[in-house]
């Protein structure tokens, strides 16, 4: 298969970037998208050009590293899949494919398609965990959890923190991510004692990082590779409102 690629090239965070045209031929339909970029980079290296920098790691859809905005969508045209789960058979021979980084002020570009998503780490550091100082995990039967809540918490915990929600949101809002992280703990007894501070601190950090605000459009839910639901955002708003009212 043959493709025309328009890839975002940017030397560093400060440089002006632009779309650069590449043509690539002899691509096997069963190659993954990332393998196709590997081949392209191999060609570029042989020609003595700078290869395209891009993030990737597990290549099985669980790590959330492969952040690319492909053909106008976060992680490409497939529903509920990451970039590494995208195969070239999903495109037609001769297609023009746009490849851009996830765009948000809070995700500055490091180089080409690689963005710095450490804003998410700083949000997690503000309370996306349960403080346990010492000792072993106690017997699970000591903490009864309703099955339905366990399911909802598990669904929220499926978030891999890839940032597709931010990339897809017209406002670059990170609320689907933050709400998934707040929800997974708010639904379980272990998350109970710190829930108020967690909601306030994580939301404040999210705002400080310069993410936009949720206007309930739903693009994040539509593009999330792990199908995190909008109801999590409502839960986060509820947690935040209650916490703001009662926290000292």
């Amino acid at each position, binding site marked *: 298969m043959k493709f025309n690629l328009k890839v975002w090239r940017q030397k560093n965070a400060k440089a002006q970037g632009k779309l650069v045209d590449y043509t690539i031929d002899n691509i096997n339909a069963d190659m993954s998208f990332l393998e196709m970029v590997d081949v392209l980079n191999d060609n570029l290296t042989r020609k003595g050009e700078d290869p395209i920098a891009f993030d990737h790691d597990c290549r099985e859809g669980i790590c959330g590293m492969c952040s690319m905005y492909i053909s106008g969508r976060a992680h490409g045209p497939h529903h509920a899949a990451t970039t590494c789960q995208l195969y070239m058979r999903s495109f037609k021979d001769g297609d023009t494919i746009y490849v851009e980084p996830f*765009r948000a*002020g809070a995700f500055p570009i490091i180089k080409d398609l690689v963005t710095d998503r450490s804003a998410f780490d700083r949000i997690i550091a503000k309370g996306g965990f349960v403080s346990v100082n010492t000792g072993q995990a106690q017997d699970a039967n000591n903490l009864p959890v309703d099955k339905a809540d366990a399911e909802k918490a598990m669904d929220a915990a499926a978030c891999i923190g890839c940032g597709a929600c931010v990339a897809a949101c017209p406002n*670059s809002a990170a609320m689907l991510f933050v709400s998934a992280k707040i929800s997974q703990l708010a639904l379980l007894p272990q998350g109970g004692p710190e829930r108020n501070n967690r909601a306030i601190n994580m939301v404040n950090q999210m705002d400080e990082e310069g993410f936009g605000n949720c206007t*309930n*459009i739903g*693009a994040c839910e539509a593009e999330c590779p792990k199908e995190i639901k909008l*109801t999590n955002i409502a839960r986060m708003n509820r947690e935040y409102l209650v916490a703001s009212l009662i926290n000292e």
Partner: protein
Amino acid sequence: MGLTGLFLIFFLVVHASINGCIWFNDGGKTFLYYAHFMGTNFLVHIAEFGLFAGLILHIVDGLLLWKQNRDARPVKYSYSVVPEKSKWYSRSMGILGTLILFFLIVHLRNFWGPNRLNQITTGEELNLFDRMQEDFNNLWMVLLYVGGCFSLFWHLLHGFKSAFQSLGLNNVKYNQAIEIAGTAFAIIVPLVFALMPISFYFHLVH
């Protein structure tokens, strides 16, 4: 946005109910009775200040939101596909709100403004029923009002449900009820409003 939005939604209910009295077809008698109450009651005057404050807050809040959200993505995508689930009217609340604001300026200039001015200068209220009959003889005015109602319809179609989501009141148990109530409200209220100038234009109200 949600709180001020719900407050303005509450106002729409009051406004639509009172203006709906024109359809009693009693020459505006019932309508003018309530219009007189709304125009002269002290508590209503205080509520009116609250309404303007709510409207201004809603606008300022909206502008801040628009600015922050625009600044959150300094470099735009060269090529972007909008997911089906994301509705155009949800993405265009600012534009729809601006259209409603333009409509409101004309609307207040037609009725509320002259009436209050007359009350201040002469102490007398204007006959708003007569004014409606006069204004809505003009086809352009009727079309402007119907256009305003369309903007309101789309604004509410997103806004009503969205307010519940923002306030964290959205959950699986009530989602469907909110969805139905929101859609019904967004259709019924603007439709009732739009039918008023249309009724006058076709002389169905007298």
